[in-house]
């Protein structure tokens, strides 16, 4: 399990400031949702955590270890940060079967043949993908592709999950089911999760905490809710549009 600490992170693209002095502490095991309109910097923040973008200023600690520091000139590459990521497009490798897609991360870990096989079978079974394991991504429905992306994430058992709008490509019904499932897997692994979305319902139902971003800055991060209270708030507020009011006040 791992906590994440972000201190004064700034990222600029030319004249545009994507992240403006962002500081945030994420507790171990937390399910943190980054919520905000498109272009607010939430995806950039996630990619900085993953190590796919190099911030211009600031520090990032993961599990107490410094993984990025502009002052100390330190950048730990993505593969060494011990995290898993689900991309918005899923980024499934189209030339590999479902099984190969999931196996890739395990191959990198250099596990023993039997260990790797056991874990692979377990993950595929957990996600109900055992029957589909020899198919190619293009032969799967959107929901199934989503599961492969999730299996790929779970297989290596990373202490940190990063998710970039993973449900935005699914239809409404499936999205609801997947929300529950995602949450279930996150809870069972206890991995610290950072989840990017612009969907308020998603934010409220899944998170233990919501961080609202705007213009590269954090607007609001004190909203800490238990699942039950989220449900209650949702049922009473979503439809009346009050949620917007609370979040962006």
């Amino acid at each position: 399990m791992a906590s994440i600490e972000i201190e004064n992170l700034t990222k600029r693209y030319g004249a545009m400031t994507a992240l403006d002095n962002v500081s945030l502490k994420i507790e171990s095991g937390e399910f943190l949702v980054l919520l905000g309109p498109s272009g607010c910097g939430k995806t950039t923040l996630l990619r900085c955590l993953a190590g796919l973008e190099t911030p211009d200023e600031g520090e990032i600690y993961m599990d107490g270890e410094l993984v990025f520091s502009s002052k100390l000139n330190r950048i730990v590459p993505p593969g060494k940060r011990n995290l898993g990521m689900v991309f918005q497009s899923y980024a499934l490798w189209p030339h590999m079967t479902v099984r190969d897609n999931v196996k890739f991360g395990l191959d990198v870990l250099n596990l023993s043949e039997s260990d790797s096989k056991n874990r692979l079978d377990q993950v595929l079974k957990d996600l109900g993908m055992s029957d589909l394991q020899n198919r190619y991504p293009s032969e799967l429905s959107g929901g199934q592709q989503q599961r492969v992306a999730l299996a790929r994430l779970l297989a290596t058992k990373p202490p940190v999950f990063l998710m970039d709008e993973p449900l935005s490509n699914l239809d409404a019904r499936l999205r609801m089911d997947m929300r529950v499932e995602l949450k279930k897997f996150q809870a069972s692994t206890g991995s610290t999760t950072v989840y990017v979305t612009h969907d308020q319902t998603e934010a409220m139902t899944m998170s233990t905490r919501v961080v609202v971003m705007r213009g590269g800055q954090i607007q609001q991060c004190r909203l800490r809710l238990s699942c039950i209270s989220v449900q209650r708030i949702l049922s009473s507020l979503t439809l009346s549009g009050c949620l917007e009011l609370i979040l962006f006040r």
Partner: protein
Amino acid sequence: MDLSTRRDSPLMRLILDPVNILLMILLGVLFYLVLWPFLELVLHTITWGDGDRRLSRDAVPGEYTWFHWLQVTASPLSERMLYAPLVNTMITGVISTVIALIVGGGLAWCVIRSDMPGKGWLQPILTLPYIVPSFAIALAWETVFRSPKVGGQPGLYETVLGVAPPEWLSYGTFPISITLAMHYFPFAYLLVAGALATIDSQMEEGALLSGASRMMILRRITFPVVAPAFAAAFVLTFGKTIGQFALPFLLGAPTQFHTIATMVYANLALGLDSMAYVLAILLILMSLLAIWASNKFVGNNARRFETISGKGFRSRQVALGGWRWPIFWSVAMFGFVVGILPLILLGYQSLMLIDGFFNLSNLTMHFWTGQSDPEIAMGEPGVLHNANILGATWNTIELAFFSAVIASLIGLIIAYIVVRKDGNPLAKMLDQIAFIPFLFPTIAFGAMYLTMFAEPRGPIPALYGTFTLLVLISVVNRLPYSVKTGVTAVTQIGRELEEAAEVAGASWGRRFRKIIVPLASSGVVTGMMVSFVGVMRELSLIILLITPSTRVLMTVGFNYAEEGLTQLSNALVLIVAMLTIAGELILWWAGKSKLVRLREKHS
């Protein structure tokens, strides 16, 4: 600061990044193999050479001079040496390129995107003209349209119709433009087809749903998406046509019709090296202009054309309806005329005891299976008994194979660096240097390497006369194409696919092997095929570097043609054609087994 911290510093990461290491190594190697020979070429044109004393009494070998440049551009000779050939080059180049693009692009669409029947066997036939060496097409044209006005036997045209063909049909602009287009349209076809094959038909279906007509979709969706490939195809084809010397030489020289390329060749043959190099540099400048225009359009828009996402990819074919069979028959007829007929003509000609005499009693197998007979062909035995030719065959296959594989791999690596390090000035420089060999007319490129590697320099031994040098120049010559192909392929691979592997902890080498190579393979295999075929029938590039132990089929064939042994030369050309067809089939099949699996899964 402990070691791991130091390794994680941005500077060390920059230095240890395998992509950056490769970038630096490739920059160094390409500088030596591409730019340095070019500088020597330029230097050669502004220096008095040893042989220049016969041109001018003022010549002092080793001293700088503008003499050669002035001779070419502003002397009584200039009109014939430069300006008339320049006009001819532009006219034949543009006409043939436009025809090749229209024909190649149209066929590519029919084969890749429509439900035209018979694609499986039409496709190889349509690439045949490119497999046949260009001077063979010229010979086939001559077989039909030879005009007795320039001497020799009449052609098939006159034999059948009883009248001599008009001169414009036999020699000059018209036959050169048409035969160049015939030779190069498959090249344009392959480039456009590669791009068309990667279009997600959902894009077109989207337009269809919004009520767009079929023509409108073609014009507004399909064409803009393949436009970069079209632009690239135009520049590549144009550059090839203006650098082509053998074909215009055969169909132009008899009536004193010269292009810049044939003037380069003619000057080299006369020993006027520096004049030839001045013309070569001018030729280079012409291509430069075209390339600049294309890069301006394609380079800046690379990301815009990222069409494969990680999600499913579909390619659905357009129904031709009532046009299905008429289109099929037109394409089949066309394929026969440009792909098979020239080979039949060559084959027939290789069976004629006396060239140009169309009569059954004139047929013989002598040039194929005959033993040496001092009465015929200066005692040369038939090609199948000729020990030289067997050795040359093996050399040809080896050269083409190694060059194609090495060029494709290096091309893909360079393409990867160029696409992924978009904005890095060094990567941009690498892209540009890798493209420079394209600007070299092949004959001049060969001459550059001849001067570069004739004697040992520093740690580099004298490579002249070695097989290595042939592979080297062939690889460098193919690089511009393999990089272009690679860029097209890598551009289509979404960045997230690689990032997903990066997050999983895969090293760069592993990502390249497991993600980039397999996903780029359909494009790269096509490129490899083009290279394999291209190297096998390449002549002007290596003719100056060949020694008896490294001779290849094309140079042997060319020598026969030079000696007037047309039948033997035709027989050899046919052997080259058979070999390239075989090679193409092997590569096609190897790439297909993988592709078909993917495609089947997609459909």
